[in-house]
């Protein structure tokens, strides 16, 4: 059995930040990530971030990942990293976490404190022939294009006009791929106006109040039929047939919480945070006294917020282990809480704050 003071599960923006923060206050940390490389979704984000200067607005996502990894390098004595390593279970009897590296190596690890930064998974839509090759999630399209430099196809129907749908559409066009249209079920564009405007200027139609009715094709995707819907999301008749070899789904994310459920953390369904999330206190501690949560696993938000949540969880963990002095911890927490409040100051942040009210407790009863 391996031992560690702090186990951070997930090496994306939240997990890296939590590990760095905890280590900077003196914790010994083990960080596991199921992917081959650390950085989570940041490594495929070639666009410049919004948000605030402290959270590196104006910097491209993959550059932010490089900065975090450089910072990580400075803590090689304090943070032990395992990539290609999935935490598969939490065992309540003794609090042990099991992990597999690849498919052939297995270990158990006992941690005094755990930070769950497991991120999110993509939502799918059920429509006829959605199993055909050529139906992709937006995450996979970004991985192919931005990590491996492979264009997924020639002509794409994008489903979803949130920020991910808009940004990935624009990146596809930069890669020379045609966007046949963007389909959005709501009556307005969900993403930032600046992203939508760029796309509209390039002549791409955005079909509001439309949904994908079915994919067309036999062995592979040849196109799709889209259909107008009413405000109750019921089809109203008008259908449009669009030719394409790729249907890209960008219809949202939902928090990845299996291990939080396994550990018996109090969970609650919060639509503003896009699914079930763990209830937490102001420092991201769940109802389980040894488990913290941060990033998309705590509710779907932007990477900039995930990084600050990770920092808060990192301080929280260090504090509970008695690392660092009280005034330093308090100073950092105040700083991070101010920064995250700034990030949530806008219109999108209002929705997040409503959701957080529902799942945040002031303090867990001892």
């Amino acid at each position, binding site marked *: *059995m*391996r031992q560690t003071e702090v186990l951070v599960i997930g090496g994306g923006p939240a997990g890296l930040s939590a590990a760095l923060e905890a280590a900077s206050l003196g914790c010994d940390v083990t960080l596991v990530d199921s992917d081959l490389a650390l950085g989570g979704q940041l490594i495929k984000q070639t666009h410049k971030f919004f948000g605030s200067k402290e959270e590196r607005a104006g910097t491209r996502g993959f550059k932010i990942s490089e900065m975090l990894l450089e910072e990580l390098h400075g803590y090689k004595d304090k943070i032990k990293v395992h990539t290609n390593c*999935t*935490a*598969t*279970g*939490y*065992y309540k009897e003794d609090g042990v976490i*099991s992990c*597999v590296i690849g*498919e*052939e*190596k*297995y*270990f*158990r690890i006992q941690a005094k404190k755990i930070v769950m930064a497991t991120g999110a*998974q993509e*939502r*799918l*839509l*059920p*429509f*006829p022939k*959605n*199993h055909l090759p050529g139906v992709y999630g937006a995450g996979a399209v970004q991985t192919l294009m931005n990590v491996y430099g492979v264009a997924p196809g020639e002509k794409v129907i994008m489903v979803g006009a949130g920020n991910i749908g808009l940004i990935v559409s624009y990146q596809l066009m930069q890669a020379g791929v045609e966007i046949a249209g963007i389909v959005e079920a709501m009556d307005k564009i969900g993403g930032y106006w600046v992203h939508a405007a760029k796309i509209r200027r390039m002549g791409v139609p955005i079909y509001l109040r439309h949904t994908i009715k*079915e994919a067309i094709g036999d062995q592979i995707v040849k196109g799709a039929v889209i259909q107008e819907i009413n405000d109750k999301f019921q089809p109203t008749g008008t259908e449009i047939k669009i030719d394409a070899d790729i249907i890209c789904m960008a219809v949202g994310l*939902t928090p*990845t919480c*299996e*291990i939080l*459920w*396994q550990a018996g953390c109090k969970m609650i*369904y919060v*639509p503003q945070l896009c*699914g*079930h999330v763990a209830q937490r206190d102001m420092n991201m501690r769940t109802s389980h006294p040894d488990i913290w949560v941060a990033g998309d696993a705590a509710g779907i938000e932007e990477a900039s917020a995930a990084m600050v949540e990770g920092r808060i969880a990192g301080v929280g963990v260090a504090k509970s282990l008695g690392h660092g002095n009280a005034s330093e911890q308090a100073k950092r927490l105040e700083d991070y809480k101010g920064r995250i409040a700034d990030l949530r100051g806008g219109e999108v942040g209002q929705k997040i704050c409503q959701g957080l009210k529902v799942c945040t407790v002031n303090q867990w009863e001892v």
Partner: protein
Amino acid sequence: MSEKTNDIIICRCEEITLGEIREWIAKGYETFDELKRVLRVGMGPCQGRGCREMILREIAAKTGKPVADIHPGTFRPPAKPVKLAVLAEGGDK
């Protein structure tokens, strides 16, 4: 609902269609765990990461309950398949 819609595969790991899920909801199997027991949805390699949400939304639509009130089922380790041989070795020290 059209035949085409019923043929949509919801749980790809176990190849369970929307039609089968609707049939069992209509028989009164109105929770994720009950559907899991009769159909094996969510019991394949992805452990429900792909299908769980769609099934919960379908249960909500058919029963008229809000998604918030539908329990997503019991989560047990392992969250992804682990070979028995690897487990039998007991892991490293």
